[in-house]
């Protein structure tokens, strides 16, 4: 079995991402417009996505669906969650040092 570590090389087209995530083009374009993923150019035909981009798009789409958000909202939630996770880890680490006394 071929196990892949998800790469950050950008090889997927908009169409492939839509198919893979079962989303329509409008939905994915909306995430691009919110800046969720970093794709180059204004021509959606030449956009290339990585598998990691795809995971982010899937997450945003689940939040939109389950929590009745719009694209701007779900992207903001994702960004805030990432920041919260980062802070929690940092806090845990810093508290560990305090406990050594």
């Amino acid at each position: 079995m071929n196990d892949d570590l998800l790469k950050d090389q950008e090889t997927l087209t908009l169409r492939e991402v839509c198919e893979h995530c079962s989303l329509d083009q409008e939905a994915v374009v909306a995430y691009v417009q919110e800046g969720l993923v970093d794709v180059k150019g204004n021509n959606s035909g030449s956009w290339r996505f990585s598998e990691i981009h795809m995971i982010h798009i899937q997450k945003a789409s689940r939040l939109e669906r389950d929590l009745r958000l719009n694209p701007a909202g779900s992207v903001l939630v994702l960004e805030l969650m990432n920041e919260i996770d980062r802070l929690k880890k940092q806090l845990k680490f810093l508290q560990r040092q305090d406990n050594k006394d």
Partner: protein
Amino acid sequence: MEYKDYYTVLGVEKTATAEEIKRAYRKLARQYHPDLNKDKKAEENFKEIGEANDVLSDPEKRAAYDQLGQNYQAGQDFTPPPGWDQGFEFTGGPAGGNAQPEDFSDFFSDLFGKAQHQHQSEQRQPNFDARGQDHHARIVINLDDSFTGEKRQITLKMPELGPDGHVVLKHRKLDVSIPKGVREGQHIRLKKQGAPGYGQGEPGDLFLEIEFRPHKLYHPEGADLYLDLPITPWEAMLGSKVKVPTPAGVVDLNIPANSGQGRKMRLKGRGIPAKTPGDLFVVLQIVLPPADSEKAKELYKTMAKELDFNPRSHLANGL
């Protein structure tokens, strides 16, 4: 099967209005959504909350449920009396979009599942080809596995629809290659190990998100590692050469004189091994020798007498 008290699940009174139920559901959904809540039970709770909302927000279902459950309490043994749903017409599927049959408890499936299955089998016609859904799971591995790359067998618990229509929790054993240099939060894709496809469609993939178990030495941050290094006050103040463990083996570290508590020393490229390896940050932890012998106490008294040192001089006058 067990009776489920949906009112308790949502934290509302049995007399709650539709609006109150909606509000309670929305608040809990935000709290337990698995993408926002990393707790092990979050996903299970989220599904239960969704199920409770599905029943209590649908007037037909709620009426039937209320009539049925008049004399029952959560957890009690329960069988639906024959003909209980006479007069009630349940239309269609759940409010939650992509729910699969295995997303619902036995209790729900037994009571409302018929309409569920009808709705869903209407959606999946045999001549409808589509790729199966992707599954996501989180796996916890040892940091050491990332240093060397390892093949590991992991067991996942996946809910599946059994032959009799009840949900069974199936244990799946999978062989996974942990790539060398993998970091927390990265995903490994196991092709075609997700949900089966429809018609001629291919199965979806299984995505495993990496999480590390706490390690006794290192704390990972991205590709970097942090190591607390206990040193003596004289090693810190006079400078010294000490041995430090790294994933690739023990190395020598020069501690400059007058190093303060918490000083971070960077060992470039000695973090998580990879094509572009992370760094190892050694955090100096100055440890005071205990004054547990006469000799030690004498030495401390000498220091107190001979060193002109007041760490509180900045606090206020006369301190």
